[in-house]
């Protein structure tokens, strides 16, 4: 059981209180962006390219403009007049809003049709005639680096190839020395496929520019409303949209997962058209548009190697990555981190030498890649280290659990400096894996597996013991376009002791309205039920960088605690004044100050707050509110031990996940029900790329599965019954000892599943398979190996 310091009535940390936000969602009263309806609003639809790489010879909008209700057709040439046809990406690359001469990927925006309703906008879109001159696209990132590849970005001055950037971490020479001297070296190429966040709500906006007030209100599916406001002001300040004239409202969001961090051309076109016409413009993507044009993630080609002793001690690792960014680097990483936090990939193991390098390349695929439920490329890194650890265990003939126990960083060795420079804050990896093994009875499963193998049945057990890195971040290293990645909380307590608290983050389903209230309740003793939480409106919320990379609890959650502590300090002063004692004579328990040794003399927080408005001490500011901008001293390092058991049909090769146990350590837990819910959801998003999802393109750049008919988001049938649990190793530097959890399961699940499948197939000599691992791929692999 998780210990709680507060009563159930107060509902502070550790209580599984039911979510405050649910009342509106279960009654159809959520307010998502497509629910926003403004007087006089026009609808926008987007003409998209059928080709992956083509010259635009002409765009003829005349037939579209003849349709009653079609108001305008906007092209790149129209935007060019205002210098709005290009925009910066968050990675300091550039991206077309609408093209003036060339399209660079299939489904790229080519023109926008504005009409009085969405059906007429779609009619208009069908009637726009675009003449293209197709060219041969570059789809293979390796071929894109060859000398004879066409230069895809001649718009970038002086560019003579398709290479974007090179990145390194660790000590190359020292690592090579260890590799050269090692008993055992294993190496494996692996591909982490291009996948999609596929939140059930697509992206969209309503841009409402009011010409009279020169003011833009932008309702938008964004995870980072404040950052977006600043970006709008930076890009469109020259036409008068300066920051005080822009209000970004992020209403209820139907799932984000990183896909609603970037700025997509549709948003910009809607703003431009509203700005030019003074009319509200609504743009809502179709699912197919969303899958085909926005928010792809991963697409990393990784060569990973591990060196160690013959008795299984890991000594060094080496990673070489080729990152396919598509047409532009439209990632949403912190500015100084082109590969995000990939350098966490040295894993949970105690060794001193690692070297990593990555190169990024342009191709004719849609731009990206977003950090899909992942603290910036951690998923790719964890897959590589957890997979190669199993390859190494097989090579030295050790059980993968045993090998992990022998190599884990020990609990007492934290804080631990990783070979790539991170300082892991805390962890107890042995306890997590032991707990996961106990829940499953690991030894009994190995006995069962041995018996099944004798009968020719395929059963596999896979482990993943990962270390996450979240909570970006300390401002010395982390910024987006120069803005430091702190986050904020503002708490106002009303005279009757009820509060409103506002944050710079933005929930997309994580339950902030409940968990932030619990943090404030924990610190102030005001019942969580009496604390209203608001986010997502830049006119009212304090500035913050938003919600992604599991950063809300580590940053804004910390800010909530710190702001509440400022208020508790004030409350102590007021209580001392009211009780006519010195501050040192008071002691705090959740909800009241009492006099030491005379507990009957006390003031509740509600009495104290009331006094701050009605009877505040002379010389003290009246009122009861506080703001805190929290700049974390370090990242937090959640971890997990996941074990997956699979059965594979030895004729059809259908793979069934029989059991999956996930033990997570996210430090102190705010709401166990919500933490568990986050883990469940992330696990299903982990089985997805492990077994089902991949965006597939042919060599002409056509997407082969760009709809929900053939992009296989797991249903309740594919998703097994997840078994979850926890260990608690508080973060030593976080004010409430929490670490963040949303992404751990998405990061940790794919290698556990892949390791289980490879373990099952190891009887045939299979050492590795790239995800997603499907029955067809298994059949093909075994056929190629001559085993069937």
């Amino acid at each position, binding site marked *: 059981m998780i210990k709680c310091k507060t009563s159930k009535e107060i509902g502070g940390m550790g209580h*599984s209180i*039911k979510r405050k*936000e*649910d*009342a*509106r*969602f*279960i*009654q*159809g*009263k*959520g*307010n*998502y962006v497509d*629910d926003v*309806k403004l007087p006089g609003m026009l609808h926008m639809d987007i003409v998209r390219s059928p080709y992956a790489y083509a010259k635009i010879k002409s765009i003829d909008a005349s037939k579209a403009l003849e349709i009653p209700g079609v108001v305008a057709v906007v092209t790149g040439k129209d935007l060019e007049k205002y210098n709005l046809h290009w925009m910066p990406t968050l990675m300091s690359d550039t991206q077309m809003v609408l093209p003036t001469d060339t399209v660079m990927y299939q489904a790229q925006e080519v023109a926008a049709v504005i009409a009085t309703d969405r*059906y007429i906008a779609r009619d208009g879109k069908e009637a726009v005639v675009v003449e293209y001159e197709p060219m041969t696209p570059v789809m293979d990132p390796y071929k894109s680096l060859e000398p004879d590849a066409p230069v895809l970005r001649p718009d970038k001055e002086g560019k003579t190839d398709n290479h974007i950037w090179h990145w390194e971490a660790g000590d190359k020479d020292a690592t090579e020395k260890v590799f050269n001297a090692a008993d055992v070296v294993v190496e494996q190429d692996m591909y982490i496929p291009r996948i999609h*966040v*596929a*939140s*059930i*709500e*697509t992206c969209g906006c309503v841009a409402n520019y009011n010409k009279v007030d020169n003011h833009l209100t932008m309702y938008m599916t964004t995870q980072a409303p404040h950052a977006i406001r600043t970006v709008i002001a930076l890009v469109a300040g020259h036409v008068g949209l300066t920051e005080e004239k822009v209000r970004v409202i992020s209403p*209820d*969001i*139907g*799932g984000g997962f990183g896909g609603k961090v970037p700025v997509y051309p549709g948003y910009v076109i809607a703003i431009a058209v509203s700005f030019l016409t003074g009319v509200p413009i609504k743009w809502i993507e*179709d*699912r*197919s548009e969303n899958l085909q044009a926005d928010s792809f993630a991963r697409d990393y080609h990784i060569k990973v190697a591990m060196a160690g002793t013959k008795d299984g001690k890991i000594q060094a690792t080496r990673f070489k990555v080729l990152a396919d960014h598509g047409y532009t680097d439209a990632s949403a990483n912190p500015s100084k981190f082109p590969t995000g936090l990939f350098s966490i990939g040295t894993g949970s193991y105690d060794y001193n030498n690692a070297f990593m390098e990555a190169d990024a390349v342009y191709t004719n695929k849609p731009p990206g890649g977003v950090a899909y439920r992942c603290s910036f490329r951690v998923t790719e890194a964890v897959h590589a280290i957890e997979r190669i650890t199993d390859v190494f265990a097989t090579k030295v003939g050790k059980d993968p659990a045993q090998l992990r126990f022998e190599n884990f960083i020990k609990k007492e060795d934290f804080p631990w400096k990783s070979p790539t420079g991170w300082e892991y804050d805390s962890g107890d990896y042995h306890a997590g894996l032991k*707990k996961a093994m106990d829940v499953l009875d690991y030894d009994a499963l190995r006995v069962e597996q041995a018996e099944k193998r004798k009968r020719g049945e395929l059963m596999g057990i896979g482990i993943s013991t990962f270390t996450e890195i979240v909570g970006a971040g300390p401002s010395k290293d982390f910024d987006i376009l120069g803005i430091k990645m702190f986050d904020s909380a503002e708490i106002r307590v009303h005279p009757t002791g009820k509060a409103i608290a506002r944050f710079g983050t933005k929930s*997309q*389903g994580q*339950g902030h309205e409940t968990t932030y209230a619990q943090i404030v309740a924990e610190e102030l003793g005001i019942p969580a039920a009496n604390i209203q939480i608001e986010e997502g409106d830049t006119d009212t919320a304090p500035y913050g960088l938003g919600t992604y990379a599991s950063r809300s609890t580590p940053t804004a959650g910390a800010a909530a605690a710190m702001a509440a502590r400022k208020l508790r300090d004030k409350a102590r002063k007021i209580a001392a004044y009211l009780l006519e004692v010195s501050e040192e004579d008071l002691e705090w328990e959740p909800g009241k100050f009492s006099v030491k040794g005379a507990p009957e003399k006390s003031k509740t927080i509600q009495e104290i707050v009331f006094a701050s408005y009605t009877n505040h001490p002379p010389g003290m500011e009246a009122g009861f509110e506080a703001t805190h901008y929290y700049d974390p001293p370090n990242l937090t390092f959640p971890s997990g031990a996941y074990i997956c058991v699979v059965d594979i049909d030895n004729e059809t090769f259908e793979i069934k996940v029989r059991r999956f146990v996930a033990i997570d350590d996210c430090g102190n837990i705010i709401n*166990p*029900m*919500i*933490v*568990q*819910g986050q*883990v*469940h*959801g992330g*696990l*299903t*998003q982990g089985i997805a790329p492990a077994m089902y999802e991949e965006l597939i393109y042919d060599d002409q750049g056509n997407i082969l599965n760009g*709809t*929900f*008919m053939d992009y296989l*988001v797991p*249903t*309740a*049938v594919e*998703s097994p*019954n*997840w*078994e*979850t*649990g*926890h260990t608690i190793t508080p973060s030593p530097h976080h004010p409430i000892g929490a670490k963040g959890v949303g992404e751990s399961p998405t990061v940790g699940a794919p290698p556990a599943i892949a390791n289980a499948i490879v373990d099952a197939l190891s009887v045939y000599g299979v050492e590795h398979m790239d995800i997603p691992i499907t029955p067809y791929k298994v059949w093909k692999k075994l056929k190629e190996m001559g085993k069937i």
Partner: protein
Amino acid sequence: MREVRFKINGEEKVVTVESRTLLVHMIREQLSMTGTHIGCDTSSCGACTILIDGKSAKSCTLLAVQANGKEIITVEGLATAEGLHPIQEGFKENHGLHCGFCTPGMMLRAIELLEKNPDPTEEEIRWGISGNLCRCTGYNNIVKAIQYAGAKMRGAELPSTEPEFV
């Protein structure tokens, strides 16, 4: 333009629509009932699921004119003056939703499932909601929510809503 007469959440309506108007758009835009959502364009996700004459249906795949003479229930019609519908209570009590976008469709699908099969097994629930996608919850708690609602609807003892988080 066509005139469509139907009952929605107990109320008689007469709405004039284009023949091509999808039922989901009529509900969302002409009736301003925005609890019914749109998550795809291939009838795959089920966010638009409603009940028509008691049967769950994806309202993105029906024309508004097909609602003529029918009785429709949307999420807005579930709660009554007495309180939440058991399925709503089930979702709230069991943390069966995160972002809430799939939830209305998921609940309406579950209602038909429970009416046909008041005490379904986990397997029957999973297959029963396999036409509705949820990207947030991992489905564990949706299954629990539906089991809870089933128990409540048939007057059985309510299952525990404590998370099994060992």
